[in-house]
């Protein structure tokens, strides 16, 4: 498990995960490329791909991040606009070790909540004290088909991928992910059902195409 979760460190180490030559020129210009999309953009992506259409409005990733933390919410640290300042600027959009730890920790929280659905696949949902939404049936069916063991069928992989990543990431990125899964099949299947699903989700949540402006 630890070995697989090492993916997070890939992000911790990166400076944007763009190719070096481009990274330098783009960052010189102060481009948003390589910066966090921000908490609300991530919420929108999750809503669209993983949540039941009728429940979308009721899902907000902030509520996972800030649960039980009303006084001093952490969500603004994950890339948010400073409202009412006369300057439409996003704060905390620079990836660094602290913000990466925050993202990682909160994605793990979400991944674990979703993974719990192996216990009741017919009513797949995200339930916390503040959220109660059904998962998108197509995404849920694909994801939960790996509860017993890793389901590597093309349709299933595509649906899990699209549910989280949407349709913008390059096709080769999806290919790479599939190969990564198959190369690690044994290790992944050695995990418990919930660990396996968490791991699947984390490998997408920490993908730069999900998390960062590209």
């Amino acid at each position, binding site marked *: 498990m630890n070995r697989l979760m090492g993916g997070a460190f890939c992000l911790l180490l990166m400076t944007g995960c763009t190719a070096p030559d481009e990274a330098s020129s783009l960052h010189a210009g102060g481009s948003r490329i390589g910066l966090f999309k921000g908490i609300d953009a991530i919420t929108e992506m999750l809503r669209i791909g993983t949540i039941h259409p009728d429940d979308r409005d009721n899902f907000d990733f902030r509520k996972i991040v800030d649960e039980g933390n009303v006084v001093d919410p952490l969500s603004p640290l994950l890339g948010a606009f400073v409202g009412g300042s006369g300057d439409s600027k996003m704060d905390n959009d620079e990836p660094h070790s602290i913000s990466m730890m925050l993202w990682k920790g909160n994605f793990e929280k979400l991944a674990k909540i979703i993974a719990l659905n192996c216990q009741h696949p017919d009513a797949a949902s995200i339930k916390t004290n503040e959220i109660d939404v059904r998962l998108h049936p197509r995404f849920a069916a694909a994801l939960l088909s790996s509860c017993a063991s890793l389901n590597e069928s093309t349709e299933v992989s595509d649906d899990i991928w699209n549910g989280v990543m949407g349709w913008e990431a390059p096709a080769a990125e999806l290919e790479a992910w599939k190969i990564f899964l198959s190369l690690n099949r044994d290790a992944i299947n050695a995990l418990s059902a919930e660990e396996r699903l968490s791991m699947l989700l984390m490998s997408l949540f920490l993908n730069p*195409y999900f998390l960062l402006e590209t």
Partner: protein
Amino acid sequence: MALVRSLNLFLAVSLALSAEACLRGSGQSIDARRDHDEQGSGSLASQAPESARAGAESAAGNSAERPLWAPQEPPTAAWLAKVARTLRKGQGLSWEDDQGQLLKLDREQIVDHFMEDPRFLDTVLDFNLYFLGFKVNQLTNKSLQRYHRAAFTFPQAIHAAQEVGTNGDYLSLFDLEQPVYARPFVEPTNSAPLTLSLEERRAESVRAIRKAIDTIEAAFINSKGEFDNQKGCDELQTSAVRLDLFVAVLQLLPQDDSLDSPTFALNSLLDKGCKGPQGQGGAFRVAIDAYRSLMEGQIASMARFDQSVYKIKSLADIQAFPGIKTRELPYEFWVEMTNSSTNYNRKRAAYVLKTFFCDDLTPINIVAPESHASDRHASDPSCQACHYKLDPVAGFFRYRGADGLNFQTLTTLAFDDAARLDAESFEGYLDTWKASDSQKWNVGYIRSLTKIAANSYETDPTQSLAELFRVIKAAPESKRCLAKRLAEYFVSKEQVFDGTYLEDLTREISRPLASGLGFKRAVKALVLSRTFDQKNPNAHICYDPPEAQAAGNRCEISFIIDKNCKSCHAGGFDLEDASVKTEMLDRLQSADSRQRMPYRRDMPDTERVTLIKWLDENTHD
């Protein structure tokens, strides 16, 4: 190849080897054509769609104008997804979208399709707030009013977005006078016992409002039945009465700050009641009657805007209170843009220059004109670099004190830092904006220190704020700024754009009365642009129009040179030659009017700064 890449990914992920491995693993070197072919949409003709040509020419009304977008390739899946996300306020493609069908359309049809989606107007609203500098998180939410209250706070943002929806006048964004948008009325939160019915509790609020108005009115009439300014003003100034009234208003309406209009109507009441010769209550009477009828209008709207009937699902559902306009900037603006006894409205002015003119006040040398040498602000050229234009804009706010209250008709002014001017010091303060050689105000948008005619001055000193917005709306710079922000918002913040391309977009959104349509066309042009479709674009290269790319990283400045230098330097400059660039830098920054370029002519500061920065960055390597 794929295997090698994925091995890299595997290594990166499982061993956390190095950032470099990650870089390779993130799939940067993908062939752009790949996803395109996979979608099997290649059979559609790559000729320019009919509508592109027709649209570009007819709307331009001038066939000589360049088409806004180049002939389009068939759509790719990734482009489709990006357009969906861009035009639907962050909501990319979803399971509900029929991608197969969509990919059978050409790119223009796809853009049109997404612009029909109600979320496109949310995007426009979001852009408007972004432009105004008050973009918020979670613009739409589950609440009763559906939209973040910031949207209601800046009615121009809602107004202009609705105009885009109806192909109306998008440039209403630049109007000071705006509708006041209603939010669904919920239960009043007054002190009436909860055992009472909703109607009774509402009636209680109504009584409270009427009573507060009566209290103010009564305070202006002394025991002998005469009008008494002093007594009334004292009463009004004590926050107790004002607060009473506000509290009453708030109880009637759902949210804390939804009604700027009555707030400022009250201010005008303050002005009228307190100014004017002692004993003459006519103006006051007019004001309080107006205020009373305003509030009665609100009261009458209660049924219409009750949450049971007034439901906001999309932007088009938002309605304005009938018969009311606000001619004020929102309270939120004033709270953020505070003024102090030393700041003299400069913070507000800096906001205006940055927001509406895209001028972030990068200091550059200026040539102080001889004739104005005695002007008090001209004393130090290094300060003048910003203050020559900052202070005259600040002047538009000269009567606005704490919280934006208008002190024009009063003999005092209170700042946000609690400092107060008496009659004499008020005069002295106002002198800051008096031109030294005349009694005229040196208040306006300054383009030139030598050619006074090039500047846009305030013409009606009794309407300073309205004058500011008149100047903003009339200025070509504000539309150019709008086009620049559009490109930032819809494509990328730091991507450079060819100047002529931005001019084309500017022309679209400047079309009188058709700016809503023009706005859509400008956005359409941006998402159909080559820049938008570029994988890993180089931020210093212009991809639109297609021919601009050949200019390499010069595209950012070639327009500026054409515009400002070509008339005299027809041959242009050899930008390969470092000594030429150094000479240009010197000439652009010289404070000596005989050396400074363009020779005895003005050049917009923003363009001079761009050119200087570019030369500076490209001279030393």
